[in-house]
């Protein structure tokens, strides 16, 4: 369920890096905890994000949750399809419902993130 080539945070985000660009999303566990997702607030292209800082929010019927960036860089692309279809985050959070693509300023940051195995162990507590 958790792709081995992705890296994860304890805040339940994932990132996968290709050619210096990191695609960021939330995990299956995160969407399951949130329940029906009804709203997504994402940054604009060109905004800078820093590792560990909030870059947006997702809202379920009941609550608002901040999104924390797993990596630092400049937002190169935003998944604006989620504005009209936030429920995709429940259906396919590791795929179609990615959130942002970030041009990494420090690719080494990724190494400090959790592997799929570490993350699943973390979930088990």
């Amino acid at each position: 369920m958790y792709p081995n080539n992705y890296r994860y945070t304890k805040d339940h985000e994932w990132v996968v890096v290709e050619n210096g660009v990191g695609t960021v999303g939330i995990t299956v566990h995160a969407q399951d905890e949130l329940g029906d997702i009804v709203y997504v607030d994402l940054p604009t292209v060109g905004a800078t994000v820093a590792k560990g800082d909030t870059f947006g929010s997702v809202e379920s019927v009941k609550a608002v949750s901040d999104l924390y960036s797993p990596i630092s860089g400049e937002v190169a692309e935003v998944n604006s399809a989620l504005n009209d279809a936030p429920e995709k985050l429940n259906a396919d959070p590791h795929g179609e419902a990615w959130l942002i693509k970030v041009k990494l300023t420090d690719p080494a940051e990724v190494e400090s993130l959790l592997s799929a195995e570490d993350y699943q162990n973390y979930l088990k507590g």
Partner: protein
Amino acid sequence: MSNSAESTLQRTPLFEEHRALGAKTIDFGGWDMPVQYSGIIDEHQAVRQRVGLFDVSHMGEIEVTGKEALQLVNWVATNDASRLVDGQAHYSALLYEHGGFVDDILVHRVNEEHYFLCVNASNQEKDFAHIVALNRFQAEVRLSSPDYVQIAVQGPKGVPLVQSLCDRDLSGIKYYWFVDDAVAGMSARIARTGYTGEDGFELYVSPADGPRLWRLLLEKGKEFGVTPCGLGARNTLRMESAMALYGHEIDASILPPEAGLNWIVKPAKGDFVGRDAVTALQESGISRKLCGFEMQGRGIGRDGYSVLVNGEAAGWVTSGGPSPTLGKNIGLCYLPVESATEGTAIQIVIRNQPVDAVVVKTPFYKREKS
């Protein structure tokens, strides 16, 4: 979510049922309660279209009995209980002397010497102490919450579902009336009341019978499309119906005229606690008023967010969220009376960003009466 923290929370007698159904539970006023099973939106739609089952055993019950039970109820609660006959219920409120809410309650008249009050879970001890302190009548007051499991069966198929387990014809029980009879052989108080804006019943049974009744309703309910529902859907359903929730629309700082609840205050019945304060406010006129809003810009106005009128802070959101029935983001807020009119442009401050909204009439949703 450590186990030690969970163990301090209270559980209803149906807790193991919820666990078996895979419910997600949350701490709701000290109770470990299901917030959802299949999903809030799915559960919400089930209640609007078919029938939903809610464990609301966390609600409190208070029995007022004795020769002067009516006098005590009419002294502590705002509505006129002398108008109730046996088997009839009404919505009412307990107020402080200054007119603010202690709680909102349902008053059921079992007989002339027995009134049965259903009160909010997290207020039950406070309500009980409040009533006891004001009891200067020949009446006894008992906090009887542990005696009941309460299951709400709500939705257009709610009446047929309960009927399928009852010998007695339930069609004669009108809205806000109740009978003490049996459901599937289990003694039950069967009340045609609810907190969803739909038809249905609230069933009060013994804790010993509770799990069996819950399972029977689920089993028998299959043919009616029954869905177990959590507090998440209960909240979106009551919000669409613009029903007050204590701690949100009403609390000790709010008086009934401000909350649009003059209709449950009956000064003509004689004196009662809070009467002078309420009638004084009714005469002088309110300065703020509860009203509904609908988001126009992107965003969801939520409880506690600030509301702007002409760019100035003017009020606050009491409840807000998506309306699954309307497909819009809605909410309730307090506004100065001059702004609390349909069509007024307002802004809700969402994460420091003012987002456009408009005042709309409530309720947001009203079922078609059959």
